[in-house]
């Protein structure tokens, strides 16, 4: 796992994706930070965090699109799959590489916190829980992106597929509100990624939401392993 992880981190930087991701994330987060927090003279960062949900929907697919589709296209996956490593080590190595870069990106919120601390008192605990929420959400989304990347050998398809899937997850609430069947509606509301995330931005740390995001990440990584397992057997 370590070898794959290190290679992927390196590849993020040599391919330039890391710079694009970080730059775009910094631009948007800084924009929302200055509009929602600095401009109104508040230390409440909830508005920025709420907006970042949409930003990462666009950015995470960029981060994950390459991970498996490129391997398939360049036929390098044959090297990985015939090496003495388990499938889960391959998948997790790549997943954590994406998650690491994502974490580097979102860590910028602490710098915003530092900037705010020049002007007033910052609720560091709330900030930390918001950061954690963003990390958990990204963890789940990265797993979805990695899974979609394993289904295709075209990076663009992987990116667009990832973007559409994450958008659908974002819109679960909207879909739920237009569903007439009560039990289905309730089910969809509990599956909502956004309302759970919104709770965090309001300063509520809900352990069941933590579990929800973590299990989502585990589930999609498991699916990715199954994709390779299935391909091997068909």
């Amino acid at each position, binding site marked *: 796992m370590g070898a794959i992880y290190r290679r992927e981190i*390196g590849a993020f930087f040599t391919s330039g994706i890391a710079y694009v991701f970080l730059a775009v994330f910094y631009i948007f987060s800084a924009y929302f930070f200055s509009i929602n927090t600095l401009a109104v003279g508040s230390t409440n960062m909830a508005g920025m965090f709420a907006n970042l949900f949409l930003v990462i929907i666009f950015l995470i697919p960029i981060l994950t699109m390459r991970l498996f589709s490129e391997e398939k296209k360049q*036929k390098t996956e044959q090297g*990985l799959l015939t090496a*003495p490593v388990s499938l889960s080590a391959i998948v997790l190595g790549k997943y954590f590489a994406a998650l690491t870069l994502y974490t580097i990106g979102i860590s910028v919120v602490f710098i915003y916190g530092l900037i705010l601390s020049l002007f007033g008192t910052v609720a560091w605990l709330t900030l930390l829980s918001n950061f954690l929420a963003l990390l958990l959400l990204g963890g789940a989304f990265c797993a979805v992106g990695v899974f979609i990347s394993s289904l295709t050998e075209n990076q663009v398809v992987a990116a667009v597929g990832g973007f559409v899937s994450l958008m659908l997850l974002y819109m679960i609430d909207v879909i739920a509100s237009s569903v007439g069947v009560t039990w289905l509606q309730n089910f969809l509301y509990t599956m909502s990624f956004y309302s759970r995330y919104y709770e965090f931005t309001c300063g509520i740390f809900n352990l069941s939401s933590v579990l929800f995001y973590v299990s989502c990440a585990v589930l999609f990584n498991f699916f990715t392993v199954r994709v390779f397992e299935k391909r091997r057997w068909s």
Partner: protein
Amino acid sequence: MIEVRNLTKHYGDKKAVNDISFTVEDGQILGFLGPNGAGKSTTMNMLTGYISSTSGQALINGVDILEDPIKAKSYIGYLPEIPPLYLDMTVKAYLNFVFDLKKCKLPRKSHLKDVCTLCKIKDVENRLIKNLSKGYKQRVGLAQALIGNPPVLILDEPTVGLDPKQIIDIRTLIKRLGKNHTVILSSHILSEIQAVCDRVIIINKGVVAADDTATNLSNKVTTDHRVVVRIDGPKAEVLQAIRSIENIKYVRADMEREAGIFEYELEAEPGVDVRREINRVVRENGWNILMLRTMEMTLEDIFLKITMGESITNDEKEAKA
């Protein structure tokens, strides 16, 4: 050591590999020969655990590739048909990555240096793989397979894309490696198999069509009952005369080689040498023999014959048995 028992792979209805069995001992170099699409790569992919078999078993040093894949894979160095190279890495970084990926226990620096020297890629180790020529890429692919010094080497068309000198180098290298490794290499180039391999398995349409040593395959099937002869004489009469010889199975006139002079291909009953008889007939009629040779069956002929779907005649089969 590699043991393959009744290995079969179906893709839907298509049988890519059908019931293949063979064993390769330590220190043996086995050549896989067959036309494109015969099932060579599929077999190799099953041996290396890239794809699973529909039924049957493949044991690498006694370990089943499906039951304990990680252990079995650690015995194998595999060079696939398309080398699994990350184009955006330098050769050095890539080999270091493979070294880590294989969880290699050997001293890193000296081992990588040895491998680079063996494959003659020392001079390009700091270049990006995407900027290398096909020959260099192929050699980096081979180097990647050699990392960790695995006891079993599986090489899928290792000399594709190399220039003649490099081909000779790689062949010498494989031969040297074959002394203390178990090697399977595939090719559709016969001279290569003949030059390198102790043993040849010819695969066609997913089944083993022949399995013997290279020398046996090419030597034993040399036959003196099939003759090509160029006779200076009227075609119809010559044909008539040859047909009258005892034991001749068939004769046909080939193309006109010189003005009015034809070449005749003829086949006698197996084991019968008819050359003297032909000579006698020609002399009796006052014609002249301008050339006479027995038709030797090279590996090439056997290969073509097998892969064209013809059955081999009985004594050729015996010769191979």
